[in-house]
């Protein structure tokens, strides 16, 4: 039981940090760069992706025995596209303003390679419980990435966060940050930071291993 829980924990948190879909796997770049010019857009996109990913992982994992291998990709896409359509109409009805801002990028969730990737690599080979946990972890990681990019770009490019003015009148917004180049720039810097952290961690682990070897030799 303890091991089981450990596995669930591991499955969930893997997506948020170690295998973060954006910072580590570098998947789903299209919505990542396109809709992160404000924090609210980033969060809405993250929520829509969470809904689609968890829903499809649940269904794919539940029906994995009945889907013949030869048509699995088509079946996954049908499932994903259905959830995306549901998300699209729901956003249009509930938050028309956000829907207008996100525009074509909601239907384009279908083409987010992270979602199809999780179905093929994980949901179709694991139990429903693990598949849902994995989907929540991955979508959570995606949302963290979207939000950090969206928040940085909105703060610097517009001087606000979630539409709330932060700096008052004397702040001159860096307009470039909410334009496409700002997206590439911010993402590049975040990736740089992420790789640096991983490198430092690896170095640390190596040093510990080295010290242990020395200690046991002695």
């Amino acid at each position, binding site marked *: 039981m303890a091991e089981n829980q450990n596995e669930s924990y591991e499955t969930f948190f893997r997506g948020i940090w170690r295998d973060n879909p954006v910072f580590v796997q570098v998947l789903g770049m299209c919505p990542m760069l396109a809709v992160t010019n404000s924090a609210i857009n980033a969060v809405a996109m993250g929520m829509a992706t969470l809904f689609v990913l968890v829903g499809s992982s649940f269904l794919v994992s539940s029906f994995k025995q009945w889907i013949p291998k*030869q048509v699995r990709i088509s079946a996954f896409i049908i499932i994903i596209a259905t959830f995306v359509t549901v998300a699209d109409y729901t956003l249009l009805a509930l938050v*028309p303003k956000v829907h207008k801002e996100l525009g074509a990028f909601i239907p384009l969730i279908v083409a987010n390679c992270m979602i199809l990737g999780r179905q093929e690599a994980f949901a179709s080979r694991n139990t429903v419980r693990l598949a849902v946990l994995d989907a929540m972890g991955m979508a959570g990681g995606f949302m963290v990435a979207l939000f950090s990019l969206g928040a940085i770009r909105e703060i610097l490019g517009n001087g606000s966060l979630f539409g709330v003015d932060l700096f008052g009148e004397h702040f001159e917004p860096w307009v470039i940050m909410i334009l496409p180049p700002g997206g590439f720039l911010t993402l590049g810097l975040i990736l740089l930071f992420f790789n640096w952290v991983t490198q430092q961690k690896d170095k640390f682990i190596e040093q510990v291993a080295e010290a242990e070897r020395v200690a046991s030799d002695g």
Partner: protein
Amino acid sequence: MSEDKTPDAPAVSSTRLVLTLALAGLISGVAIIGIYEATLPTITINKARELREAVFKVVPGVTRMQKLVYKNGELVSTTETEKDEEPIYGGYDDEGGFIGYAIPGAGPGFQDVIGLLYGYKPDQKLVIGMEILESRETPGLGDKIYKDAEFVANFKELSVEPEIVTVKKGQKSEPNEVDIITGASISSKAVVRIINETHTVWSTRLPQPGSEPLMTESEKTVDEAK
């Protein structure tokens, strides 16, 4: 193709493959129809409210509106939606007195199509308000066409005679001149061009000032019910 990648896949009859996908498609179709039916009323209400708000904004003082279409050489009120129609909206006060038209127009901007709605008083030949409905102009620059209050204020009392012209910021002196936005000249010129073009089309279609279509009774009751 998939068999190359997964050699362990058991042989499955084509009928089963077709049936699986057909069933998946069917279920998916039903789900999509379900969500469409469930959200349609809210979406329709939202759109209608957005339009009403925009009309009320560009024609100040309006409390009622009706949809008008140009048919067989005259402007008639309608409540139906037809294909390829180009409706405009008549704005009226509480007693049903005519105030002005709200006319939608669209045209290319800097990035994509700009869709807008402008209020028009035919007796004075004045534009009395402008609202951008649709735009993908550059954030921070081109989007000033609706975020910059000074620019929008240009359209509160703007003569269309002989036509609207753009001048450099701060040089507006005639009633038909608009100050363009520094750094967004293409977008602001596009707005002016769209209004000019739309006005050319509609100026011949609108009836003589004073003989505007009356507020229809049916529309009134619908309005009061709301």
